């Protein structure tokens, strides 16, 4: 394994180029993804290589997703970019009523093997229309897969797997991760979907944390170790469907669960994990299941307010300590 260190956004770029090289049915589409290489530079270099497979569009998100669905019917494998995940709101119908249901509507004959790369999350001071976490909008819709990488290696491996998947995948790219660096194998192939990853083993509390929340959990695990509290940190990697087996096994062992989630609390994805546990593993639980989340407000602009709304390290520590002392 090579020790090559690249950024999260570079990892995505590599995955795209790798898959487009391998399979000429793959193309990218979105606003400014071609000539300019994407608003965040993630698709740079692709248009130069394959001008006809890197389509710059008008500001027409419904058309983008609709086009993806139609081309998938013809066997293509589109990768669309939502420059900011929030904009998927104007294409919501296309995701929920077209992409998600396409296989069902077509009797299994074809499906929407599309990837929607959605740049989401808070932290860059761009307020309520450019900071949302969109997974709760889609989780109740059968047919969709939602993937949430936390590291460059995951970004590359999971994106490759998502492109190869025959299901429609919403691929969440947290914008605060783009510049994060990590070891990524150049020859890296797919990393399995639907599999959570145990980031560190522990015996007292299971902590589930995805994307930018993972570092908070890992930090807490270091700090709490000194207090004699041992965290098992799980990175779900895929949010729908959840890797129930891994999560259940962990909580069966620890008996305690804290879920750290960006985004408002009410019906965020932490609710599903919590409900799943309260249903299936009740007898193993030693303490209430805690959800550490953003505050239930639109994301405000000013840095101080935004920081206050987002989950913090101290929130994770407090939740874990309370859980332990229950």
């Amino acid at each position, binding site marked *: 394994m090579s020790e090559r260190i690249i950024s999260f956004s570079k990892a995505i770029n590599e995955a795209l180029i790798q898959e487009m090289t391998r399979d000429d049915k793959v*193309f990218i589409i979105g606003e400014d993804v071609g000539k300019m290489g994407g608003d965040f530079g993630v698709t740079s270099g692709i248009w130069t290589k394959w001008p*006809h497979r890197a389509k710059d*569009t*008008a500001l*027409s998100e*419904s*058309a983008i*997703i*609709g*086009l*993806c*669905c*139609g*081309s*998938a*019917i*013809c*066997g*293509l494998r*589109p990768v669309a970019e939502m420059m900011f995940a929030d904009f998927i709101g104007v294409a919501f*119908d*296309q995701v929920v*009523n*077209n992409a998600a249901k*396409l*296989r*069902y*509507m*077509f*009797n*299994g*004959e*074809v*499906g929407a*093997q599309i990837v929607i790369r959605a740049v989401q999350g808070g932290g860059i001071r761009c307020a309520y229309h450019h900071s949302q976490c969109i997974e709760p909008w889609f989780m109740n819709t*059968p*047919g969709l*897969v939602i993937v949430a990488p936390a590291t460059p290696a995951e970004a590359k491996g999971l994106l490759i797997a998502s492109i190869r*998947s*025959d*299901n429609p995948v919403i691929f969440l790219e947290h914008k605060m991760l783009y510049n994060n660096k990590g070891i990524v194998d150049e020859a890296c192939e797919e990393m399995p979907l*639907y599999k959570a990853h145990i980031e560190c083993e522990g015996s007292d509390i299971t902590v589930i944390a995805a994307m930018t929340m993972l570092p908070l959990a890992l930090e807490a695990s270091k700090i709490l170790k000194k207090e004699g509290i041992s965290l098992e940190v799980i990175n779900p990697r895929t949010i729908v*469907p959840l890797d129930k087996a891994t999560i259940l096994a962990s909580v069966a062992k620890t008996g305690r669960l804290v879920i750290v989630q960006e985004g408002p609390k009410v019906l965020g994805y932490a609710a599903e994990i919590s409900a799943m546990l309260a249903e299936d593993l009740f007898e193993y639980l030693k303490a209430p299941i805690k959800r550490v989340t953003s505050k239930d407000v639109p994301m405000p602009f000013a840095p101080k307010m935004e920081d206050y709304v987002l989950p913090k390290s101290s929130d994770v520590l407090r939740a874990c300590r309370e859980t332990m002392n229950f």
Partner: protein
Amino acid sequence: MNKENLIKLYRDMQLIRRFEEEVDKCAKKGIIPGFIHLSIGQEAAQAGMCHVLKKTDFKYPDHRGHGAIVLCGTEPKLVMAEIFGKKTGINGGRGGSMHINDLKCGNLGFNGIQGSTQVTALGTAFASVYKNNDAVSVIFMGDGTLGEGACHESINMAATWKLPIIYCLINNQYAISTHYHEAHPQKELKTWGEGYEVPSFRIDGNDVEAVVAAAEIAVQRARDGMGPTLLELMSYRWQGHFSGDPAAYRPDEEVAYWKAKDPLKITKERLLNLHGVSENDLLVIEQEVELIIKDAVEFSISSPEPDEQDGLLYVYADMEVQ
């Protein structure tokens, strides 16, 4: 148009008419579940458009699309059984009247959300360009559906990229109870297409020959890489919005006027008067159609219901739902 083609079109329209009449009857008897949108009165628009298309073309019939669907190539009885929600239906009863697909013959009549196929068609059309083949994508839509934002995103992109799409807008003048002049500013809806510099034509949608002529131009333009065309086919639905809708919102004279403009009658008269076809020749055709319809209804009635668990199939490519 030559005699053979016109006879074939008469047969196609007769097939639609009789198919829809039987659907209506069965719906009113209560043996078809859900609600049903009938295309009686709009046969010429559907038949004329389908006439110029190949199996490899992508057809997007809408909620009022049984007619186009039976002409796409799927056996009528499999369509009928789907409308009945039977296991033998072309989609196993999962879809029903509003969702009848058959990819083998390019029938993509799957969507119940108005405006959705407009953007889906961008994808099948884009794929034709991407793969460099000559398939065109035809969107059947109503006047009311033009209200959806997706129509704009669709024609804007199709026109910019010169995608092989035909907007086959059957203007039957109402969206449920709302007249198109109450919902749209244009005197003629084709004006909308002109706003995108897309060649747009208003055609008598009850004159099947006029429809074929316009459709041929539109399809040729699409196959030649010249981009989309909008056809506004003027027509009328004889019934209300759905089977059972009294449609009290329409003046009686208007209904009478349009029933007099019956596309089948018009074609029949031309065949009899201009092409030397005999009443008997047509009777033979009508009887042939009758057999198909009778068979379709009997097949549908006698077909088994789907297994309840069939509803759990085909959600994911690689996972079963419990």
